[in-house]
Structure formats: C-alpha cells, structure tokens
C-alpha cells in the first residue's frame, strides 16, 4: 500500500547533480549521534556551494550564496533530526537523505522507517498539516508549546520550512509486505532558490 500526502512528486526528471548520504543507526544511542545531524547538514550545504560559484565582484551573488547555504543547512538538519527521532531501529534499515539540484529549486528526500503503531497518528498529523493554513498553524503551535511544560517535540520543523522558507512538502508512506510491521516514510521538500 502506498499513500501520498501534500506535494510529493514521483516523476521528477532525474537531476545530474545529486548527493546521497545513508546512516546505519548502529548501536550508539541517538543522543550521542545527534551532533552528526548538524555536521551532515552543514556538509551538504558546503558541498552544494560548488555549484553556486562566488562572483567576488558581485555583492549580490555572495549574499545569494549565503542564503542558499543557510537554507540547505536548516532544511537538511530539520529533516535529519525528524528522520532520526522517529525512525524505528528494529527495522534495521538505513536512514537516507538525498539532495538534488534542479534549475530553480532544490529537492530533498529523506527516508526512514516507522512501525504500524506510529502510522495512524502520523497520517492524522499529515492530514491536518496539509489541509490547514501553515501560517495559522505555526502561530497556533507556538502558543500551544508555550503552555505545555513537558513537550518533547516542538512540532515546528515542517511548519518553519513551509512558512519561512516557502518550501513545498510532501510525504509517501509505503507499507512493507505482510508480515512486516514496518512502514517506509519518504519526505520530500522542494525549496525554491
């Protein structure tokens, strides 16, 4: 079974410029691996800069380069944080992040694995997220977080990408065949540059 939410494009033309990184969670606790998310996100941002040559005579190009680098670093870090946080390691399937360079936009795709038990709440969350006004939902979430003493998750990663970075987001959920209890989640972010 495959289910799509939001702006998930299956038939994107393949890009000649792409970077894929895979993470096998292994035995080290997530807390100790957390710093790797930021390091990997910064690496992806640095790597991409090769394709945006810095024209030293043009102040505008340097600023644009800084903007793109910062956006890639933010989006990749949030995607990795989510993928790591919600991944079920018992599935023993690596987490992946791919960055593709298309003409006027970048495409990120992360994949991670969740259990059937996590599926229903996640489907409800995605239905709500993709049918609401993101700006309204964002402010609502900030106020809600402020009232809760013990919120473990800020619920802001996807909303900041949509609101502050004008990104289009989509998800593909794929149930593994019986008797597997796992579901692969692919998250696609299209970022205009």
């Amino acid at each position, binding site marked *: 079974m495959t289910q799509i939410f939001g702006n998930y494009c299956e038939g994107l033309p393949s890009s000649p410029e792409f970077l894929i990184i895979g993470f096998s969670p292994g035995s080290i606790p*997530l*807390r100790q691996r*957390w710093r790797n*998310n*930021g390091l990997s996100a910064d690496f992806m941002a640095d790597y991409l800069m090769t394709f945006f040559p810095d024209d030293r005579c043009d102040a505008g190009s340097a600023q644009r380069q*800084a*903007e793109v*680098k*910062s*956006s890639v*670093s*933010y989006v990749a*870090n*949030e995607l990795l*944080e989510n993928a790591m*946080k919600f991944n079920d390691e018992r599935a023993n399937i690596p987490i992946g992040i791919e960055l593709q360079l298309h003409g006027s936009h970048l495409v990120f795709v992360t994949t991670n694995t969740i259990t059937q038990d996590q599926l229903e709440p996640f489907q409800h969350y995605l239905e709500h997220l993709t049918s609401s006004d993101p700006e309204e939902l*964002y*402010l609502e979430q*900030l*106020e809600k*977080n*402020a009232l809760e003493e*013990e*919120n*473990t*998750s*800020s619920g*802001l*990663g996807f*909303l*900041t990408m949509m*609101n*502050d*970075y004008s990104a289009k987001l989509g998800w593909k959920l794929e149930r593994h065949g019986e008797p597997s209890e796992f579901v692969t989640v692919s998250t696609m972010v299209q970022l205009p540059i």
Partner: protein
Amino acid sequence: MTDTASREIRTDDYCVRYDEPTQTVACQGSLRLSGMAEYEPIIDLLSSVADTDTDAVVLDLTDLEFLNSSGISMLSKFVIKVRHRKTVTMSVRGSRTIPWQGKSLKNLQRLMPSLDLQWD
C-alpha cells in the same frame, strides 16, 4: 525574585548569558539541541529572566549562527512569557548577515506586536 545577576550556560557550540546591568540575554554560536528536554537548562535561564523585576528585556541574537526548530520553540516561549508581563518592553537584536534570522525572527513579532525588532 530569582538571582539572575550573572547567569551563563556555555559549551563548545554555544553560549547563553544574561547581563543584568544591560537587561540583555545574548545567545551565541550554534543551538541545535535534541528536543525540548535538552534545552531545559536554557529554558530555565530564560524563565528566570522573564520573572526578573525589570522594565525591559533585550534578546541579542546577533551572533547566533544556527538555531533549530526546537530552539525557535524555546525563544517563542520566552517571548510569550515576557508578553504576559504587560509592563515589560522587549527588543530583539538580529543580524542581517545571518540568513535564518531574516526568515524567522519576524514570527517573534507576530507573537508580541509591541516587540521591537532591531537589525544590526
């Protein structure tokens, strides 16, 4: 009132410091901690500042290079706490050279319309 004369949390990656004479909380470096639990010590510091008997609070972010969404949630919490203290004025100092700030700091103003957002 909580003693906030000189409060500071410093690691290799970031520093958060309250300077009472200037009523300023400065956040510097890269804040990408894992979820709200790991932000707890900083949330406590900010809460104690929000509870301080003062007429103004300045949040200086001009040297904060990175902030993840959990960190955005933490700063929003702080702004909402200060907003509840109706007699306290708040200003936030951001840097135009740090791109995430140009994209995300306006949301703090949406939470507290009287907040003065200053750009260096």
